[in-house]
């Protein structure tokens, strides 16, 4: 779902990654999803000596892998992926042990039987310090079984050029409605998952559609979201999937308002480029570690998840990538850490309550509805291509 990144810049790496995850809260509990029965790891054994990781750029770095390799003897072999789809494709080859999947990739991998349920007893660091909003989400907890260990998260915010807007827009209507004063200077995210952003807007403004979860859309609801996106297509200046392109558009003045990430605003490094969370709320991306069902290095994988769940390592990954860490114990570890956590709202559950974590849409309605079939990600993909005509 994200665009291809340019490897030269670390910020491209950022663009490449996106997490999707599903929102949790009360919805997850009531939903029964058909998942292949795969046994979980019962007890730790000897380390196998190597660990093959599929990861977003910035998630695996000698700064923390050196110590892991020294402690466990597991040689880390990372493979950077550019998109969630690429991650799914790579994991399905069976050649990798563990993946830093976003929620939209995660659920696909779980229902496809490509990853295994986790035995959290073997991950002592997977504990109370995990931010409440990152626990028991449907992307890593299906039918009550945990599948993933949270890494970090970020929100899709409304970025705006304050010189033009003179203050933060209160609503996403500036990017959706044809009477937007910024017509032609709007940017939208170029991926099927962006349909969820339309759904979030409709949840607020068209309650009669009955959307309860932007990732559980029946046919009618999807059609309404697509209609809104087609309306937006007439006022969009540019779709973005490449982080550098998005930043240059804002800095260059081609774009005045549009969806963005906090880390991209930082890279833009202009005081007049700001972000806000409008009243409708938004979507976001949550990443977690998932272990392959075909792994031969399961003990190294568990050790890795445990190691990266410690406050210091988890924090290092979050800072390196530019997101909120899953382990909020990191935040109180130093003033620098606290500043990072504050900037990315790591401890602000009120903030993240308004965020719907990206989740792969599947035919089972993740909002708990049993009387209708929801639209799958495949349908979203096909529908997305019709938006731009």
């Amino acid at each position, binding site marked *: 779902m994200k665009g291809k990144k340019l490897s030269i810049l670390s910020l491209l790496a950022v663009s490449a990654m996106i997490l999707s995850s599903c929102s949790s809260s009360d919805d997850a509990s009531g939903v029964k999803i058909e998942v292949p029965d795969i046994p979980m790891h019962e007890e730790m054994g000897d380390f196998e000596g190597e660990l093959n990781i599929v990861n977003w750029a910035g998630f695996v770095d000698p700064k923390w892998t050196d110590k892991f390799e020294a402690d466990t003897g597991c040689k880390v072999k990372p493979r950077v992926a550019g998109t969630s789809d690429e991650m799914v494709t790579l994991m399905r080859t069976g050649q990798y042990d563990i993946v830093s999947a976003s929620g939209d990739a995660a659920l696909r991998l779980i229902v496809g039987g490509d990853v295994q349920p986790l035995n959290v007893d073997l991950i002592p660091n997977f504990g109370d310090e995990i931010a409440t909003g990152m626990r028991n989400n449907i992307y890593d907890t299906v039918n009550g079984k945990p599948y993933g260990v949270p890494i970090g998260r970020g929100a899709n915010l409304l970025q705006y050029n304050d010189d033009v807007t003179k203050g933060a827009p209160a609503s996403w209507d500036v990017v959706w409605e044809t009477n937007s004063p910024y017509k032609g200077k709007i940017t939208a995210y170029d991926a099927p998952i962006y349909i969820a952003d339309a759904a979030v807007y409709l949840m607020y403004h068209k309650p009669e559609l009955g959307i309860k979860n932007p990732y559980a859309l029946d046919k009618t609801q999807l059609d309404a979201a697509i209609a809104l996106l087609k309306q937006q297509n007439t006022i969009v200046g540019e779709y973005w999937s490449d982080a550098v392109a998005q930043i240059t558009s804002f800095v260059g003045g081609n774009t005045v308002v549009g969806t963005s990430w906090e880390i991209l605003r930082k890279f833009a490094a202009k005081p007049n480029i700001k972000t806000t969370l409008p009243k409708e709320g938004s979507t976001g991306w949550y990443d977690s570690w998932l272990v392959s069902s075909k792994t031969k290095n399961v003990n190294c994988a568990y050790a890795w998840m445990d190691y990266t769940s410690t406050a210091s390592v988890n924090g290092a990954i979050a800072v390196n990538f530019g997101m909120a860490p899953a382990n909020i114990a990191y935040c109180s570890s130093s003033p620098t850490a606290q500043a990072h956590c504050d900037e990315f709202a790591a401890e602000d559950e009120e903030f993240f309550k308004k965020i719907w974590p990206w989740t792969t849409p599947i035919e089972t309605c993740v909002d708990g509805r049993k009387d209708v079939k929801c639209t799958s990600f495949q349908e979203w*993909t096909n529908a997305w291509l019709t938006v731009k005509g």
Partner: protein
Amino acid sequence: MSTTITKAGNRPLSAYLYKRAKLRLFSLLALPMFWIVGVYILSLFLLLVTAFWFVDPFTSKVIVGFTLDNFVSIFTVPAYISTSIRTLLIALAVTGLSVLFAVPLGIYMAKIAKPWVRNALAVAITLPLWAGYLVKIIAMRLVFTEEGFFNWALAPFGLSGPTFSIPIVILTLTYLWFPYMALPVFTAIRQIPPNLFDASSDMGAKGFTTIYRVVMPLIVPAIIAGSVFTFSLSLGDYLAAKFTGGSTQMIGSIIAANINLNPPVAAAFSMVPIAFVVIYLMVARRTGSLERM
């Protein structure tokens, strides 16, 4: 007088091949045939086969089977049809624009310019080929941004340059592929005897008449050769649309979006540019221009 005839030299391999024409032919063609059949045709064939498969909507895994749905969707989904037509028109516009620029430039270079000017222009035309493809697209993007060169240059006249849109995609693709048109056209014009220009003007033809009636017909093969590049490369491109097209969607955009999500649809769609190029070459063949290539 008697003479002794001796066997000349000792070159068993040459002598062996010399007497076996088919074996010589085989050794000549072994590598190219491996490339064409083993790599080129085979991969195209595999692509075509994939186009008949489908994707499990639940797990998004590719299922080997047989369905025509992927092809049907190309012709039934309005967004796909309009994207195909838009891409075709963009590719034609790029080709037309390249010809429009290449012919006068080629005439100047081949028939008028002093040798050092000609060499400088030849380098200038080919220079962009040395730069990375993506670099050039990004360069075009920067030139056309709101605070980029064109708005800066036009600002004193109270004008503003175009924003990212189809015309800029056409300009970007023309910029990318122009050398592939300019070089064969230049070479072809160079081969036109100079006295044909004299003869035309001697018989009363002004410059444009000479270009239209004498130069153009003689360089049609070169234009076809160049347009195979400008046309087919434009048909398959999606990065130009992505970086300079604003909300412009091309066939390549659909393929790129589907390559991981739905490989069979991507495979089916990749047949569209191939079909366009085949039709294009058939039309060119009908006009007889290929025979003189």
